[in-house]
């Protein structure tokens, strides 16, 4: 957590302008417009608006400056690391998997990059992890956390629609668990109806309060949502900033090849400063294999608990593959917790097959830390000696230079 906080806070507020390879130039005017006029400013009316409200809240609290712009994602990023550990602990107790998964998220240069700017994928992912954590507390430890799960689900829906398949999947998992334990009663169905349907939908509707303040009523809300669904289907790849879209690769490539791109702030013959999006390729490329291994293990053990992370990964990834609209690389953010939970699980299973599992997990974690420390300066705009980073920079696409 210390490393996660350090990498997300260090130097984050020193860049005084909107980061050119991020969407800050869209998110920040949108947030200000949302709090002033109740509507977004550009290219965002089709999406839920909670992240804009959060951003406008931090801008009102800390000012229209880099702290106000970026502090919320810093906190969501650090919180996500903690939640991945807690979720891992519930899914794979008494193993090194939670620690490895949290380590992977904490030191992932892509997650760090997203945490240092304003992308809405991070709050969406954070709220879903919170929902998953409370649901697992309910299913695994029989805690009365359903209302909290409902609140977290509502916040997820109110942020972005990435988890439309994953949310019901978790409910299905919980219902199946209850069935296995003969707890499937009418009272449980009623609890689910109130806390996992009525409560989150009401909360999601409430997140449009500023929009209703523009004079609208509920029937107009439904018409706007239908318009939004239609409009999202109309987006064409060529209408977006093509340099960013191409540099980030297609969803099919995100876990298969190195993807590095970003801005060069300065460079001379020996040193350079960059702000780069790096897809953490050494570990992302073992993620698909790890998901397959974890899935196979779950199949052999007939354990839905073991299969949950791979299933959630597939549920979110399917959306990117089948949806009829272009996807930017930052959307990969929502897949990382499940990919890394499965990676942590696969490594812990393989480590269990050798004599010294703790040593194997320790070695893997050391690699994660070394890679994270090595790539961090490239993400954070720190000056780096070019000879140390030549192999990485040779693969990178520089799409903006000062």
């Amino acid at each position, binding site marked *: 957590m210390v490393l996660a906080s350090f990498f997300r806070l260090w130097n984050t507020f020193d860049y005084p302008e909107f980061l050119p390879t991020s969407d800050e130039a869209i998110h920040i005017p949108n947030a200000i*417009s949302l709090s002033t*006029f*109740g*509507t*977004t*400013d*550009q*290219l*965002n*009316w*089709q999406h839920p608006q909670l992240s804009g409200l959060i951003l406008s809240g931090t801008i009102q609290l800390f000012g229209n400056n880099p702290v106000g712009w970026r502090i919320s994602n810093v906190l969501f990023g650090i919180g996500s690391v903690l939640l991945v550990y807690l979720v891992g602990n519930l899914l794979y107790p008494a193993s090194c998997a939670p620690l490895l998964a949290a380590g992977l998220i904490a030191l992932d240069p892509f997650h760090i990059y997203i945490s240092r700017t304003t992308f809405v994928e991070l709050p969406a992912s954070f709220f879903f992890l919170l929902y998953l954590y409370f649901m697992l507390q309910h299913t695994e430890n029989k805690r*009365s956390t*359903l*209302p909290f799960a*409902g609140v977290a689900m509502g916040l997820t829906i109110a942020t972005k629609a990435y988890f439309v398949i994953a949310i019901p999947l978790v409910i299905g998992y919980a219902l199946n668990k209850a069935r296995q334990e003969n707890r499937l009663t009418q*009272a449980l169905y*009623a*609890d689910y109806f*109130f*806390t996992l349907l*009525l*409560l989150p*939908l*009401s*909360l999601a*509707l*409430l997140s*449009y*309060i500023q929009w*209703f*303040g*523009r*004079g*609208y*009523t*509920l029937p*107009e*809300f439904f018409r706007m949502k239908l*318009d939004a669904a*239609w*409009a999202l289907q*109309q987006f064409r790849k060529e*209408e977006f900033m093509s340099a960013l879209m191409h540099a980030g690769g297609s969803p099919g490539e995100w876990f298969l090849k190195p993807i590095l791109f970003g801005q060069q702030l300065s460079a001379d013959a020996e040193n350079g400063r960059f702000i780069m999006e790096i897809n953490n390729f050494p570990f992302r490329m073992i993620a698909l294999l790890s998901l397959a291994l974890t899935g196979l293990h779950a199949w052999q053990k007939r354990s839905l608990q073991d299969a949950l992370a791979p299933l959630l990964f597939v549920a979110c990834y399917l959306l990117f593959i089948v949806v009829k609209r272009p996807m930017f690389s930052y959307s990969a953010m929502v897949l990382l917790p499940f990919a890394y939970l499965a990676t942590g699980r696969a490594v812990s299973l393989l480590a269990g097959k050798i004599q010294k599992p703790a040593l194997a997990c320790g070695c893997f974690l050391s690699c994660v830390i070394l890679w994270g420390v090595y790539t961090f300066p490239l993400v954070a705009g720190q000056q780096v000696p070019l000879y140390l980073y030549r192999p990485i920079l040779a693969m990178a696409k520089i799409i903006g230079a000062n």
Partner: protein
Amino acid sequence: MRYRTTVIALTLAFSCAVLLLSFTYGPFSRVYATPPRAVTVDTDSAIYPALKSAGLKGRILILFTPLLSPQIGTNTSTESIELAMRHSLFRTVYQVVPDSAWPKVFSQNLVRPMPTPPKISDTDVTLLLEAGRITVMPLSRFWPVEENVVVIIDPAAWTPDERAHILRLMQSGNLATDFVVIINGQSDDLQQYGAYLRGK
């Protein structure tokens, strides 16, 4: 058991409150022109100041003019209307054009550069903007609106018969209005609409 009952009761109360809010908050937020009145403006760029000075909020605008040109960034009626929408004066706009001008306006809207392409139906074209919808249609396809609306009219764009038809719509209550902006209006236009509004 007590925890369960409390959770269900709180959830129900919360949901009912949100539902109630979603039906009532919008209408309560709308601001109408008091007293109802008609004003004339000489240029397109004067439309927004005239609307702003009336203190309107959250309203439906009926725009009886074919003037929504595709030029953005200059002082056109387009800019005035879209600014008024963004600044919450209007949530929905219906642009009603003379039937004779419909083919031209229709094709203008099709080529207009916008993030979302226009939504086309048999009877109208809808532009989906960040701040709301603009539905464009010919006068013959215009239907009554159930709430009090703001009207902007360019009398020069209409024949005397069409002008009379629009005024009849207002007088019959099918187009209840509290604020009329007349573009380049003559004194008799102002008198006509003013008389109607004073009679409300």
